[in-house]
């Protein structure tokens, strides 16, 4: 009964604990996709932090 509910749930891409998970392949694909996005986003955030640091140094040079 529980499995049938899982399969019928209408969440695209197998995302979410009660989504239409399908099979391991779908889940692994989703995780791969998420991991690539997480790495890219974390890289961007880190670059933003470096940029921020440089900009604050420039402000300090200009003002002080």
């Amino acid at each position, binding site marked *: 009964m529980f499995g049938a509910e899982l399969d019928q749930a209408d969440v695209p891409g197998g995302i979410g604990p009660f989504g239409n*998970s399908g099979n391991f392949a779908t889940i692994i694909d989703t995780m791969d996709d998420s991991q690539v996005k997480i790495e890219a986003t974390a890289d961007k955030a880190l670059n933003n932090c470096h940029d*921020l640091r440089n900009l604050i140094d420039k402000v300090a040079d200009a003002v002080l």
Partner: protein
Amino acid sequence: MLLERLRAIGFPDYASFQSYAMLSGLDAKNTRERQRRRPAAIPPLLGAVKTLRELSNETETLRKLLGRMTCSLVNMRLIASRIEGANGPISLMAQNYATVLGEARSWVEKFSLDQNGDLNKISNAIRVGVFDYAAATVQRQAIGQFRHDQLPSEAGDKAQEMRMLDRRPRT
């Protein structure tokens, strides 16, 4: 309603918008009055505000992605339990992975959502810095203008008034 519109264009609160608006206004004024050289601090300050907004968006995206990944792992455990029964190797792998992801998510949340988190501290420092810089520049320009204004004789002693205005209030 105003705050909702500000949030829609990327400002978390009115104070952030106010700082940005003051600095942009100052920059626009400098550009219009071409005789003034653009102060060196303005471009990096504007850049810092923009970068900070990007950083907030990136951390929010990161938080959502980590949450989504956790949900996929729950699905993985559900399917694994059908195949291998409870506590099989795949379930354990998923559980370990979920623990690591949970920690990563809590670091990101501590960084970005916590009132005393680093992102809030950086954000406040930049907001206050931008506002103070812009307000001080406007005051300096106003003083410069008052110095050159020709006052009628009945207006009193300009030097004395300047000294009076320059006096800091005792706190």
